[in-house]
């Protein structure tokens, strides 16, 4: 559980660019055995959305927004000892997922979080990064033969790139399940799952967790 006062303290430190103190807060939460999904949704995701809103209202610069993103991405690394904890890895389920961002999509924190949630649930999870060209993604899928592919898109104008990716995956791997998600769907476009067979739209980390459990 992350209290409002702790969240506000973290947000203030984050906006000051105080990586060390942000790391201290995250480490304390991890030491208290916080659920990783809660940490991601209620601290990282919530603060990143707030920072986006602050940019929107011209309260912070693009440089500050980028700094916050870089710090947040770095803080994800603190979680890794938990991800690869022996008890978790023993519960491995021999399933593999490849997570990617749409071509031309440079926002990758969400995709990284999704990859971590899979890893936490015993999957072999491969995050292949932002702005991955479709042909390289297809080659990687061919080589790795995952059970599932996840595609993230943050900006609505990258929807055509997402659809090109979906069409290419479906054309080459007819029975491969696909998940899509990201902020680009905030105001619509979720019908995409009806346009591409075997594709599921995932609105949140909560929903992702329950899907993995099904």
């Amino acid at each position, binding site marked *: 559980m992350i209290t409002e006062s702790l969240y506000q303290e973290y947000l203030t430190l984050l906006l000051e660019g105080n990586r060390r103190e942000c790391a201290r807060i995250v480490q304390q939460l991890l030491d208290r055995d916080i659920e990783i999904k809660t940490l991601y949704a209620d601290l990282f995701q919530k603060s990143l959305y707030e920072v986006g809103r602050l*940019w*929107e*209202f*011209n309260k912070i610069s693009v440089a500050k927004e980028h700094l916050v993103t870089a710090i947040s991405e770095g803080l994800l690394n603190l979680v890794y000892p938990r991800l690869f904890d022996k008890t978790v890895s023993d519960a491995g389920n021999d399933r593999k997922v490849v997570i990617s961002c749409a071509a031309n999509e440079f926002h990758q924190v969400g995709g990284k979080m999704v990859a971590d949630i899979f890893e936490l649930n015993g999957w072999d999870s491969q995050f292949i990064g932002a702005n991955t060209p479709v042909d390289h993604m297809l080659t990687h899928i061919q080589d790795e033969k995952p059970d599932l592919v996840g595609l993230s898109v943050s900006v*609505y*104008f*990258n*929807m*055509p790139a997402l*659809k090109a990716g979906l069409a290419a995956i479906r054309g080459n791997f007819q029975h491969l399940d696909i998940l899509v998600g990201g902020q680009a769907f*905030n*105001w*619509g*476009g979720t*019908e*995409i799952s009806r346009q591409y067979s075997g594709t599921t739209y995932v609105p949140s980390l909560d929903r992702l967790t329950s899907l993995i459990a099904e």
Partner: protein
Amino acid sequence: MKDELLTQAQKLEPPGETAIREFAHKWENIAATGTRLLMGRPDLAKLVGKGNEQMAEDNNRNFPRFMLSLFSDYQPAVFVETVLWVFRAYRSHGFQTTYWAANLNIWVDLLRKELSEDAWQQIDPFYNWLIVNIPIFTAITDTDLPGFVSNNPDHLHGTGTQK
């Protein structure tokens, strides 16, 4: 007001595949020409705010990409919400509401010139919707910007007037 925008937006007919393909094929050149015209305006700093020229250039590149996404799978709510977000964010950063009137007119002139008549007829209603609703976007985002120094030309008196 937002409900009215949504009702109007729901009446727009998405362009057909041929028109979308033509737009997809031509938007980059049109955007480059449009950006040159916009950047060449003597009143640019007044329209976009001092130091925001790069932001205006980025906006002019992202705008047609957004329109292409929109045409490809038309979602009226996405259209309305995104335009309001753009007005909120860019006005917060110092863009004047006259920027959209000026820039949309550049876009309309270029699209009319570069697109086939058939494609233009299908795409024009979307740009027309944007132009005629500038006062509505302005009014809605006025209320979204508390303590905002209005940059609506109707309220400008030298340095702007606190609302």
